[in-house]
């Protein structure tokens, strides 16, 4: 996207002269995008309420960085201005309103915050690093118990059981009610530049220090099992067929009911709710499949019933990339996943380092996932959530372009989760979730210096104990938290304290 010089006075934002067409273009697309992903109403009404409540907007500006918008363009030395957590303007020579908090990003790179597809619940609900004491063991409703840190699905199951025990009728706010904005896992996730994460099929904004507005969307990704047995496939097809029939009948009824008043509304009885939600567009079907035959089957099913499937794994996708592209599939690729070819067949198979690149070239939207969805402190070059960019590097090694790999960590996962109208790229009207790095975000040596979530600084490398000692930004006394000279805050930590 071309981003011409933009001068934006927030008070007269409607009078933006040059470059306004870009915003207009976006504004025209935005409602469509929102429709496509089925933006939920409470979201917008909440935002409206917030506006009413707070007449004094909070301004935040990231000034002077090389802004990689995530839509193709790079604006060198540009400024991003955020108003109440939403990007108000991106461009040059912006007039900053009085009271704007400024983050100096001169000489640094600015990227959209990354979206982690499939992150363990420990990220937003806190992983415990020590055994629980008896008090908490006694408390059966306490969750986030140690030991489940890396087991997303198990946690999710646990969650459901507990919800039932507690007699929860409405589990809608579960993710919010269990959110831990101070969790160390969350801090580490922010420290590598991830600002949104998938949790139980929904999307969370990883806000620090607050729990309001963390849930962007709930239960959008809906898991389907693609069984290799033919009976399972038939059953699944029948479910979708039933749902499609119901939709057809309903549409027909809606047309005819004007004339024939006594016509009964078609019954939902026997219609599979999950499939129906997918066909109605209120959910997105996700399959876990790797075999060529399975992938082809999913592509056919999707084309028959007219939905865009998300295929997780997709190891042999490169062998059927054309078919997947035609089916409009999304793929969640774990580039380091390895798999041997089946020696009993002649045709191509097994994993390929070019998988992501080939899929992308055939029009499949490729999201890149981490090898493990939790946070593992057991190694430097790990395979966990903290090394999601290294996974993207493997895709690049296989021939994917940098831009496509970055999209695999930002816009594509945002699209898969149905939150692309809010996160994934740096554009006016989107949430101000950006990261400031000291180099190319995909380079393994690059460190995130600042992470901004919803127009608020959520992570500052020099202020936290994680990476402050590695290439300190500005080597001064008191600049590295582990090396403070005067133990004023906590009287017991001496200057010789080791991190």
């Amino acid at each position, binding site marked *: 996207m071309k981003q011409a010089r933009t001068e934006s006075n927030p008070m007269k934002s409607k009078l933006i002269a040059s470059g306004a067409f870009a915003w207009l273009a976006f504004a025209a697309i935005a409602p469509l995008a929102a429709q496509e992903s089925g933006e939920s109403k409470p979201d917008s009404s909440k935002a409206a309420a917030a506006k009413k409540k707070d007449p004094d907007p909070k301004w935040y500006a990231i000034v002077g960085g090389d802004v990689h918008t995530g839509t193709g363009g790079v604006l060198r030395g540009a400024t991003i201005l955020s108003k109440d957590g939403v990007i108000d303007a991106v461009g040059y020579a912006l007039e900053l309103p009085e009271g704007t908090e400024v983050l100096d990003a001169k000489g640094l790179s600015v990227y959209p915050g990354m979206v982690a597809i499939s992150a363990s619940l420990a990220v937003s*609900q*806190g992983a*415990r*690093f*020590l055994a629980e*004491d008896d*008090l*908490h063991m*006694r*408390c*059966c*409703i*306490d*969750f*986030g118990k140690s030991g489940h840190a890396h087991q997303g699905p198990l946690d999710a199951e646990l*969650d459901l059981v*507990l*919800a039932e*025990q*507690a*007699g*929860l009728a409405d*589990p809608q*706010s*579960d993710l919010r*009610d*269990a*959110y*831990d*904005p*101070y*969790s*160390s896992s969350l801090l580490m996730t922010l420290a590598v530049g991830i600002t949104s994460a998938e949790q139980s099929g929904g999307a969370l904004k990883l806000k620090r*220090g*607050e*729990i309001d507005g963390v849930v962007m969307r709930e239960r959008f990704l809906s898991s389907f099992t693609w069984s290799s047995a033919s009976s399972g496939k038939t059953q699944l097809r029948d479910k979708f067929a039933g749902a499609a029939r119901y939709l057809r009948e309903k549409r027909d009824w809606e047309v005819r009911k004007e004339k024939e008043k006594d016509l009964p509304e078609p019954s939902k009885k026997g219609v599979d709710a999950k499939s129906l939600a997918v066909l109605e567009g209120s959910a997105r079907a996700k399959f876990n499949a790797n075999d060529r035959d399975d992938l082809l089957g999913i592509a056919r099913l999707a084309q028959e019933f007219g939905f865009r499937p998300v295929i997780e794994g997709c190891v042999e996708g490169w062998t059927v990339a054309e078919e997947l592209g035609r089916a409009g599939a999304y793929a969640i690729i774990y580039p380091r996943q390895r798999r041997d070819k089946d020696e009993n067949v002649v045709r191509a198979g097994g994993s390929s380092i070019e998988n992501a690149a080939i899929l992308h070239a055939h029009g499949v939207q490729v999201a890149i996932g981490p090898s493990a969805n939790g946070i593992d402190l057991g190694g430097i070059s790990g395979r966990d959530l903290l090394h999601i960019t290294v996974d993207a590097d493997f895709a690049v090694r296989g021939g994917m372009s940098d831009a496509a790999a970055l999209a695999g960590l930002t816009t594509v996962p945002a699209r898969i989760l149905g939150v692309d109208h809010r996160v994934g790229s740096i554009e006016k009207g989107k949430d101000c979730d950006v990261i400031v790095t000291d180099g190319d975000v995909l380079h393994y040596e690059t460190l995130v210096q600042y992470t901004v979530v919803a127009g608020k600084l959520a992570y500052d490398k020099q202020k936290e*104990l994680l990476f402050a000692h590695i290439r300190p930004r500005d080597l001064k006394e008191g600049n590295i938290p582990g090396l403070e000279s005067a133990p004023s*805050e*906590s*009287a*017991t*930590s001496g200057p010789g*304290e*080791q*991190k």
Partner: protein
Amino acid sequence: MLLTTLLLSVLTPADPPLPSLYALRVGRAETIAHGTIEHAVVLVENGKIVTVGQDLEIERGIPVIELPDATLLPGLVDCYSRIGLDSEGSSGFEPQARASDELYADQKLWKEVLETGVTTLGMYPGGSGIPGQGFALQPHGATREQMILKDPTFLLVHMRSDPGAKKFLRDGLAKADEYDEKEKKNQEKWDKDQEKKGAKKEEKKEEAKSFTPQGFESSSFEPAAFEPAQDKAKKERKGYVPSEPDAKSKPFVELRQGKLRPLFTLSKAADYLHLLDVLAKEEFEFDARIQLRDDLDLHYVMDKFGEKKLRVAMEPRITLQPNTRRERNYAMELAKAGGKPVFVPRTDSVNGMKDWLRHVGEVVAAGLDREVALRAVTLEPAVLLGLGERLGSLEAGKDATFVLYDGDPFELSTRVVAVVLGGELVHGEIKQ
């Protein structure tokens, strides 16, 4: 003077009764209310403190107990204990349950507790979720009634960053809302009926009350039991009398009315945000209990605690910041932020109580203000239990409940010399 000597020579552990009126002259008194007083004199009459001061002149004829080497402290208050109670507890949503139902008097244990200098115990109900209401006792007395000082003390709510825990609290508050609404309607109806009756004659009053209270299910020790006859009489006199809420709603109605104080246990910083999220616009005051352990992240919400001047019951312990070896003195940080630390022994046992002040001493050595530390084992826990008017400091009008030490109470080598409960010597010897 001769009389005094005679009197004191009679005081042996086997024969403890102190006179009903006496003066105690000690080397030092930590009054809590008025700081440290050297050469302090405490005048006690009928189990209450009459006056406290430095080198007060003592009227002739009043027996004087001279303990020039002793340090006097108000009796220690452990406000969060289950010592001596059955370890079973209700789980889930049982706000009406009473911990006092589990109490057995006349155990050897109570004497051992007293010997540690702990004169007041705040007991909490076992279990999870909202397990019930606590009570306060003195570890002395032959019957339950003699032991129990206050029942209930607080409503215990285990608050976690968890949909289930939040749901319990929301449900409870919703019950109170329901009751308030119902009462409002009933009262309006009653007012209307009264107007009508004003025109006619006063009759059919009972019908104004459209629903009958269900009474209490489980509490055997219920101070304000429902008595319909009395109720009727009251109504005659005062006008509309609100009906009794049902057992599970009652504690929450009382929270709103300020009759009952909640104690929320938290397990990490995020729990506090979730608590505030549920309480939103509730106005009642509350206290918190946080079990200190390493990898606790309270520093994130310390300023929020301070803002609310929150009273937080915690162990005297230095903890490590998550994933680091950095030490945190949360009691000190809380006091600096403006909150009120309250200490509970590290382990809920007689041994824990024995080591209690020594552990507090460690936290003082690490920077906690000494006065704050003393308050945190006496007055603050007493206030938390709603006994601040009676216990927790050496002040005129308060119970003569105190502990005598042979030195600085935070020193390792210091021993408890004697324990006095309501003016009565219950442990140790007092000689001249």
